[in-house]
């Protein structure tokens, strides 16, 4: 199967700090690929490079065979890459439904002029946006929250709403940044079910950063381990789990020469 996303020799440096160094990652069609690694390993930095928030110093990032390294973020989104954030990437001040409506931005079939005059097409489009947003929320069992504001909702729910907004952008490739953070084991389990269901029904490919090991083991087809900006190892979840270097990196064993906790992950 062909790769949806292929990251080749990508490196990025912030001053003297090498955040990513010669990273090679392939995300094949219809797979859920995990990205794990200790804090400051460069996972979120890699996401920022994929989305275009950062420009890598070297290497290429291509999506379905075309190089997207130079495209601005919104063009990458229009191509079908959706992303969630480590902290909540939602627009506070808008309701849940409105968030899902804004997220459909690139596919809105009227221009500023149409909006101004208020053509029938504009209203039809607005109705379509609303319906589509409702359908996404329905799919995630969130319809009861459609008109509520974000303040006061539990963190785990916000994480799920965020997945909803990303689905509203109509992605082919989902980049999930710690989707289970703020969730208990049961919720994380439910999330795992949801991801598998999403993949099956919407034909999605997923690349996700995740710390919750059971979720990674249960859901991912393949796992990359990042450490100090480099791919340390990769393989089937079960293999990676037993890899001595991985255990060392997580638990701080003898392989780890310097336990520096520099956090290169800039929160979005």
């Amino acid at each position, binding site marked *: 199967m062909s790769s949806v996303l292929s990251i080749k020799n990508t490196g990025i440096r912030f001053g003297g700090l090498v955040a990513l160094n010669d990273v090679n990652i392939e995300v094949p069609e219809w797979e859920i690929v995990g990205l794990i690694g200790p804090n400051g390993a460069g996972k979120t930095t890699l996401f920022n490079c994929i989305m275009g928030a950062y420009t890598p110093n070297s290497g290429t990032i291509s999506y379905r065979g075309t190089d997207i390294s130079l495209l601005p973020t919104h063009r990458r*989104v229009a191509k079908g890459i959706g992303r969630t954030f480590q902290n909540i990437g939602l627009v506070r001040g*808008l309701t849940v439904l409105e968030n899902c409506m*804004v997220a459909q931005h690139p596919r809105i079939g009227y221009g500023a002029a149409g909006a101004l005059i208020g053509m029938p097409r504009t209203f039809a489009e607005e109705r379509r946006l609303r319906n589509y947003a409702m359908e996404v929320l329905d799919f995630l069992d969130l319809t009861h929250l459609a008109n509520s*504001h974000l303040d006061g909702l539990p963190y785990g729910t916000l994480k799920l709403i965020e997945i909803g907004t990303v689905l509203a952008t109509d992605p082919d490739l989902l980049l999930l940044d710690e989707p289970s953070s703020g969730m208990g084991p049961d919720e*994380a389990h439910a999330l795992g079910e949801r991801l598998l269901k999403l993949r099956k029904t919407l034909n999605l490919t997923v690349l996700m950063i995740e710390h919750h090991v059971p979720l990674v083991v249960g859901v991912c087809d393949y796992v990359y381990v990042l450490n100090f900006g480099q791919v340390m190892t990769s393989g089937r979840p079960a293999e990676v789990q037993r890899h001595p270097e991985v255990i060392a990196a997580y638990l701080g064993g003898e392989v780890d020469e310097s336990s520096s906790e520099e956090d290169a992950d800039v929160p*979005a």
Partner: protein
Amino acid sequence: MTATATEVLETVRAEPTERWSPSVQGWVARLLVLGLIFGSVLWATANVPSYWADRISLAAIYAIIGLSLNIVLGYVGQVSLGHHGFVGIAAFVAAYYATQKAGCTVDTCSFNTFMTATVIAALSGAVAAMLLGLIALRIRGLYLALITLAYGFVAERSIFEIPFLTNGGAGMPATRPDGWATDREFAFLCFFFLAGVIFVDWRLLKSKVGRAILSIKHSEAVAATYGINVTAYKVLAFVLSGLFAGIAGSLFAFHETNVVSNNFNFANALLWVLMVVVGGLGNRIGVVIGSAFFALFPFLLLLIGPLEHFLRDTLHREPDYFTIVIGSGLAILTLIQYPGGIGEQVAPITRWLGGKPFSMHPEGHEKHKAPKKQRSGGLLAKVGLHKSQVSTENNTEELAALGRAVEGSKEDDSE
């Protein structure tokens, strides 16, 4: 495939839950109140003394300026202290066009000339604001505020001093168009433009443009991942603000009938920021009310008879002088006590007028309102499925593994 898709559409349709809507009497009452408000404003304009009508047209112009500033301040979330630059440039351009190019004399000026002058002025305001918008892509917050401040001063010291454009200290005449020349007629003309600006503001905010701009205000990174072209929309917001400021500038020029650079100084820009804050950031109706209040304030002050004597003879100050003093006080009160400004205070009434039940709290009734579900060819129809058809049964293997893993983790936790 086609057959399945049709079926899907059928199943997705859900029973539409009823939305609260006013009764016929309710609508009549709302229309009556609305008519009363507009009627009294128009009646007042038609019947007050001429110098009051003159002030009312200034109130309408201020309201347009307020809406212009509201885009930058309320929607984009940046402070502009240089709005007198945009308004001033547009005013001079309008006056210059009317007097020097179209040949208006002190006695007569055709309506078409006035309209052309206003369009040109609006465009020049938009261009001036676009420059600032491009700067705003790089710089924001306090530093952008400083740059706008500098921008205003530069405009004051350079553009407003160009002799051929501003006619030096004597000022550039701008004769009011024929048929709209009296104070009263000109006030109605200003109302037309205000209505137009409100309409444009309302339509854009209600559409994808407004949602995009609001998202950018909250988080540019999130807006970009929603597929919004952050750069373009930010510049668009500034351009729109400049366009409104340009219209206001042109109206101001014809309102004054002779534009001098003293009309536009930092005190104006400050007053405009104050009136938007007091009106309520991002609240259209509040901003219009706040702006009108600030424009009329000196006259309202004079309604109190003895006060005029006190201000003029004891303090030796014109009533205008106190607008900014009182305005600052109101702004402090707004920021500390009533963050939503006038707009929030009148919100129960405006919500009611907009066809919602009367309630003092914004979501009083909406909390219980089940959103309407409708059929659509959306998310699942794309792949020919409905939610109920999506089962997880086929995933049993994967899920079993997941379940075991979760169980494992729980055991780990308990250990």
